[in-house]
Structure formats: C-alpha cells, structure tokens
C-alpha cells in the first residue's frame, strides 16, 4: 500500500504546541494590525455601496489615462485597476450616481472618446444603493451569527452529549438577541455576534465543555487569519467571501471532529494522566486521512484558483487559505488546547515506531 504518512509514525505534535500557538498569535496580530492600519476592512460594493464596472479594451488599457477621464467626470475618487489581463479594467466608484443607468454608459462614452481607436466592451456593471448594501451587511452578519449558533449547538450536543444544555443555550441566546433587537433596534449585528460568541464561550467554560470550547476557538482562529490575509493583501471583502468564510468554518470543523472522535475513542479505559499521549496518538492515527483530504481539496481549489478566471479568484483564494489554516488549527491549536486544560504531563521527544511492532499492535487493539 502506498502511504504518504508511514503508519507507525509517532510525531510529538503536542510538544510543539507552544511554538504553534505563538506562530498563530503572531499571524493573527499581523492581520489585525493590517486591518487597523488600513482603517477597517476593504469592504466591497456589496457592503459599502457604489458602482463597479468591468471593461474590456481591444488593446491594452492605460490606467492613468482612464483616471484622467474619470476625474473629468467628477468621479475622482474611483479605484481603477487591471483585472486579470492588461486589456481588462475594473473601475470602482464609491457613489451611486443619480442617473444610475447611465453611469456605466457615461464612463463608456467618455472612454470611447478618449481612446477612439479601441472598442470598449462593458463586461459587467454592478450598482448597489445604500439601502441594499445596508441590508446585505445585516444579512451577512446574521448568517455568521446563526452559523455560530448552529455549530455551537451541534458541537455541544455531539461531543458532550449535553443536548439539553445545548438547546437551552440556543434558546437563551436567541431570546437575548431577539430582546436586544426589539428594545435596542440600533444595536449593530456585530455586537450581537460578539455577544453570541462570548455567551458560547462562557457557557462552555461553565459547563466544562472542553472539546466544544477548543473547537470554537480553533474556528475563531481560522476566520481571523483568513480575514487578516484579506486585509493584508487589500482584497475586497464581498458577499462571496463571507460565503467562503462560512464554508471554511464548516470544513475546518470536519478535521477537528475527526481528531476529537479519535481522541475519545482512544481514551476509552485510559487513565487521565495519559491524555496528552492519547491526543498525540490520535493525531498521528488520523494524520493520513487529514493530509489526504486536505491535500485533495487543496488541489481542486488550486485548480479553481489558477484556471477559474478572475471573477472567482478572490473566492478561491479565501478557500485556499482557509483549508490550509483549518487543517493546521485542528492539529496544532484545537488538540493542544485540550491537553492544556487537562493539565497532563506532555510526551517528550520524537520517536518513529517501526511497522508491526507489538507495542503498536497492543495500542491499536485496545480501541
């Protein structure tokens, strides 16, 4: 059998926990700093309103000349950039013009006048008014909120078999948020999400739901890093990106659940002190599967990233980062957190146990 991960591998993942957490913290902080320095996320027109035009020229387009034209049309604070190739240009205007239908053709006419030799094709025009962008913002945040809720309930029920508590938590959160929206309608959905997250964390701490808490924190970690990358590379944050984030959340949880399932399976009849060792063993046992799945998913998303075209490019990028970080977090963030809370002694050193050792068999047979 061809194997990427030798079956008897016993790499001490838990030993690297401290370094891993420091690395993660560093990356998260860099991302946050970038967001602060740039004055918030680069919200796309879905969330901030405005006009987006994608134009294709018959020959290559000069950005500066285009900026001139826009300036003359009093659309000076527009963003102009190449989109994929030299011939294609993306123009983003923060305002929604009064003659909405005309802003696209207005710009087109002006550009045609400026570049008489070229044919200019309006490939795409998107105009989002302020009411709609406010709606989309709210919807995106509520989507995140309900996703968090759903996942917290599912994890709590699944891992801790505390379905009642989980449903109870859901009801409480729901009632609280509903009350807030009724009595304080001005409260932004962002506050609701933070309340929900804090509520979930407190709940887990209170009921000692370690698995659930570790999983939630790992998800948090994944989202923060992905968003940080987007801010770092100044990519626009649109609805599809939020969709990608939610998908990453669901996907990263996959990995985490697989490892946690193994840990619990292996912990049957084990003593508490051997927890760290069991965690290590479980990670090693599931490593093959984790690497393979993430690897293949990465492969297909990379195909989308390279060949899928410009329009879906940012979406594929988000997925790419999310899958990598999600896999990383299941191994180096969620599991070590569990160990940390169990406070067991950690297994030191790296040992490669050769195939077919009786040691290995005994361990495997215990499950």
């Amino acid at each position, binding site marked *: *059998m*061809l194997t990427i991960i030798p*079956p008897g591998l016993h790499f001490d993942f838990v030993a690297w926990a401290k370094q891993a957490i420091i690395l993660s913290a560093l990356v998260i902080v860099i991302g946050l700093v970038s967001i602060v320095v740039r004055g918030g996320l680069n919200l796309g027109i879905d969330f901030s309103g405005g006009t987006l035009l994608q134009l294709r020229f018959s020959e290559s387009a000069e950005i500066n000349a285009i900026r001139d034209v826009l300036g003359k049309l009093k659309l000076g604070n527009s963003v102009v950039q190449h989109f994929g190739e030299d011939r294609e240009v993306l123009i983003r205007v923060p305002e929604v013009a009064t003659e*909405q*239908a005309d802003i696209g*053709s207005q710009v087109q006419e002006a550009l045609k006048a400026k570049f008489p030799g070229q044919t200019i*094709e309006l*490939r*795409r*025009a*998107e*105009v*989002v*008014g302020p*009411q*709609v962008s406010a709606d*989309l913002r709210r*919807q*995106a945040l509520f*989507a995140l909120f*309900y*996703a968090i809720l*759903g*996942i917290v309930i*599912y994890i709590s029920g*699944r891992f801790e078999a505390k379905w009642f508590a989980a449903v109870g938590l859901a009801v409480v959160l729901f009632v609280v948020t509903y009350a807030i929206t009724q009595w304080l309608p001005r409260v932004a959905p962002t506050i609701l999400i933070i309340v929900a997250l804090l509520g979930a964390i407190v709940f887990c701490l209170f009921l000692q739901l370690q698995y659930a808490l570790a999983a939630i924190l790992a998800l948090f970690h994944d989202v923060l890093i992905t968003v940080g990358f987007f801010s770092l590379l100044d990519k626009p944050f649109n609805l*599809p990106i*939020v*969709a990608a984030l*939610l*998908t990453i*959340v*669901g*996907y990263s949880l*996959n990995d985490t*659940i*697989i490892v946690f*399932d193994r840990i619990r399976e292996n912990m049957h009849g084990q003593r508490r002190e051997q927890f760290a060792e069991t965690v290590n063993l479980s990670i090693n046992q599931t490593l*093959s*599967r984790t690497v*393979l*799945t993430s*690897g*293949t*998913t*990465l*492969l*297909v*998303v990379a*195909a*989308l990233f390279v*060949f*899928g*075209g410009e*329009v*879906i490019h940012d*979406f*594929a990028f988000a*997925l790419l980062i999310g899958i990598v970080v999600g896999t990383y977090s299941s191994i180096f963030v969620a599991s070590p957190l569990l160990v940390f809370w169990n406070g067991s002694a950690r297994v030191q050193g790296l040992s490669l146990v050769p195939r077919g050792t009786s040691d290995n068999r005994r361990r*495997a047979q215990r499950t």
Partner: protein
Amino acid sequence: MKRALLIKLGVVAAVIIICAIFALPPKDKIRLGLDLQGGLHLVLRVEVDKAVQRTLERTAESLRTELRGRGLNVTTVEPDESNTGIRMLFGAAPDMALVEEVARDYLPGDIVTQSPEVLVSAYPAAELQQIRTSAINQALEKIRNRVDAFGVSEPSIIRQGTNRIVVQLPGLDDPKRAIELIGRTAQLEFKLVESQAANPNAQAPSGTELLYSKDKNDQRQLMQGQGYFVRKRALLTGDMLADARALPDQMNFGQYYVQMRLNNRGKRIFARVTEENVGRALAIVLDNAIFSAPVIQGPIPGGEAQITGTFTPEEARDLAIVLREGALPAPVEIIENRTIGPSLGSDSISQGVRSVILGGALVFVCMLIYYRWSGLIADVALGLNLLIIMGVMAMPYLGASLTLPGIAGIILTIGMSVDANVLIFERIREELRLGKAVRQSVETGFEKAFVTIVDANVTTLIAALVLFQFGSGPVKGFAVTLAIGIAASMFTAIFVSRVIFETMFSLRRLVKLSI
C-alpha cells in the same frame, strides 16, 4: 447473487438512469444563473408614500369638483401636510350636513372642524396601508406588462418585502433600454401653458407651476430646455389613452413619433379643451417634463394627438409601450442593478468547466495512484457524484440555477467527496494491517467510518443551510450545489462504494485487496 445485493444494485442503477435523464445533455437541461448567462438583475423600490400622496390628490380634486357642484363655497381641497388626510378650506363656514353628505362617498374617515372655514379628515391607517399595498401590486402588474411587451424570454418579476420589486431579465441585449422602460413612471398629463418663463426665478403665477421642456443637445443627450409656466391642473391624463403607437415620421426620414388615441371620455374633454382654448399652447407633459407644447389651431374632435421629437425607432416604440400600459402608480427608484454581459458569462462558464474537469482529473489520478483498484471504485463514486449533482440541479421542480460560485461549490464537493472515501479506506487499511480477513476488513471499515462521515459532513451542511437562508443570488447557488454535493457524496461513498465492493466479493473470493 444475494437478493439484497441485487436490490441495492437496482437502486444504484435507478439513480444513475434518473439523473442521466434529467441532466443530459447539460447544455439544454441545466438552468444558468444570471452571472453565467448574462442579463439584468434589478431591485426597484416603489415610493409608496408618493402613491399615497397622489391618491389623496386625486380624491381631493374630485371632491372639490363635487362640493362646488353642490353649491358649496370651497376654495381648496388638498392633502394635508403629512399626507395622511384631506384638508378642505372654505370661503365661509359651510353647511356641515351637506359637506358630510357629499364627502361620505369620497372620504373614509370622519370630518373634524379645525376652524370655522377649515375642515380636515384623516384617513384610517388601514386605508392608507391599503393604498400602499395596491400601489405595489399595480406597479408589479404594469412592470410585468412592460417587460412582456419588451419580449424577454423567461423574465422574473416578483415582490420583495413591503415595497420592493425584483426584476430579472436573462439574456438581455440592451440593458440600458430595459432599465429605462421599467423605471419610467410615464405619467402623462396635458396642461395648458400660461406663458413662457423668461425668468425662471420669478414667482409662478397662482395656479401654475414651472416646468421645463426636454431638448437634446449635439450629443443626443437630454438637457433642460425652455421653461414654461403651466397650469397645475391636468386637463387630460394618461389613463384616458385608448392606444399609443410608434410610427415613422414621413417628413424626417429615420425618425419616429408616437401617435396617441384617446378613449371616449378623453375625446370629449380634448374636443372641449381645444375648442375653448384656440391660440393657447397645450403642453404634453411626461413625468413632469414638457415633451412638446403645440399651439391649438382649432377644435380637435377626433381625439388624436402626437408626441414628436427626435426619437429613434426604439425610443418611440418604448414610449408607446409605457403609454399603452399606463403610468406606474408611484415612481420607482433603482436601488440595485447588476448587469452581466453575455461575453463575461460565457467566459465564466468555460473557465468554471475547465476547473471542474482539471480538478476532477487530478483527484481521479490521485485516488488511482494512492488506493489502486479501490481508488478506481472511489473514482466511479466520484463520477456518480457529479452526475447526481447535475441531475438534481436540472430538476425543474426545484428551480435551481447554476451560478459561478455554484461551480466552485461543485469543485469543493469533488475535493470533499474524497474525504468520505478516504475515511473508509483508511479504516479498511487499518483493519488489514491488524491481520483481519479482506471481507471483514472492508465491512468493519465501512461501519466504523459511517458515524465519522456523517459527523464531518453535518457541519458543512449547517454552513450551507445558513448560506442558503441568508445569501442572495450567486451565493445561494453556491449553497445549493454545496448541500446537494455533500448529500450526494455521502450517498455514493457509503452506499454505492459498498455495493461495488459487495458485488466484487460475491463474484469471487478475494484474498488480497488492492487498496
């Protein structure tokens, strides 16, 4: 072969056949979203408050005529400041009983005396709401008719929320024209001209308002032309039109004009107006802009009038359409407009399909190399997976359409469907390493992996469900393909792969498994 196995094989075969029937050939069977087909997506906000105002104005107008007709000395009847009721101003304190008798047919609310000469009547909230609702429904109807006249295949026009209308026109050639056609209020009024406004800043004479004519400059763009003071009261309105038609201008080649024919009531009024006002100009006002103001030469009993101007054939035709179908009950504002050109749409399709094929091929090869013949089984399951997704998408009852993020969802599913197979195969390998028999290992592998597979996929399913609920347009398409893909991958990995293995075992005894 055992009966149970035959039934299972039958199920698999049935699934294949059903999906194949639905999904092939994909070009015809699968509906494309706007971002792949090209087209227009508009969200309109109907200014329902203006509709309320207009209804109040019309009622006020009729009420005034009626009150006067009964001999009451009424000066003005108009909507109150908040547009929630009607205010009547009399020259002297009127006969309340008479006023109430007359107003009973017009006003739904009670009449209250604010002062001896001023009577107000507020409309009940339910009545106002009724006006708003009816305005939206009317607007919906009219826009639908206009779009029908425009001739788009498979348009979608639906109400959204309390005052929004969503219009989707796939495969549109000229989005600009469609937008103008839809967004135009098209309120037609005939008003008498008092005088030209030499100085637009001067006070408008009482009973008149300042309106401008529309002129086209050299670049054929509309701009404000001459200002006129016209009488506020409209003598004729668009609902008095029986028909409107675009006809070629005989004198100016290439230009068109719109011929209007009035209905019986309009004909009578028009004849009277033209008879009484020879020598005056009658402004034809469309959406508060003067299109033309010809001088009345003599009485016109025939009830026909023209709107001339430098119209292209399309402009004239579109104007005729909106005049025929009637004015929108209230102005609409375009709050969202997404136009995708067909070239971008087809590019996106080809790029998306390319990615799917490439991604699928990569996974196919990887599985083959890593799991050998068992990998082939996984690949067959993958192929069936794709077929099922396409089949479900093509089902007409679901109304699902494929978007670019939807294609991304399919690609993701390819990657994730591998997961289920990997889980099973890795367990099988573990069992084999422990020295168990081939058939036993396979069965144990499937059993042990089952719970984990379901677990792992449920979380992504939750994400997909949330996205479906809160997403819009292309994102919804992503949620749909993701959800279908996950379900399909669970089915193919757990059921179909197992059936293939079992079939293999029943055909011959395997001592070694190529995995």
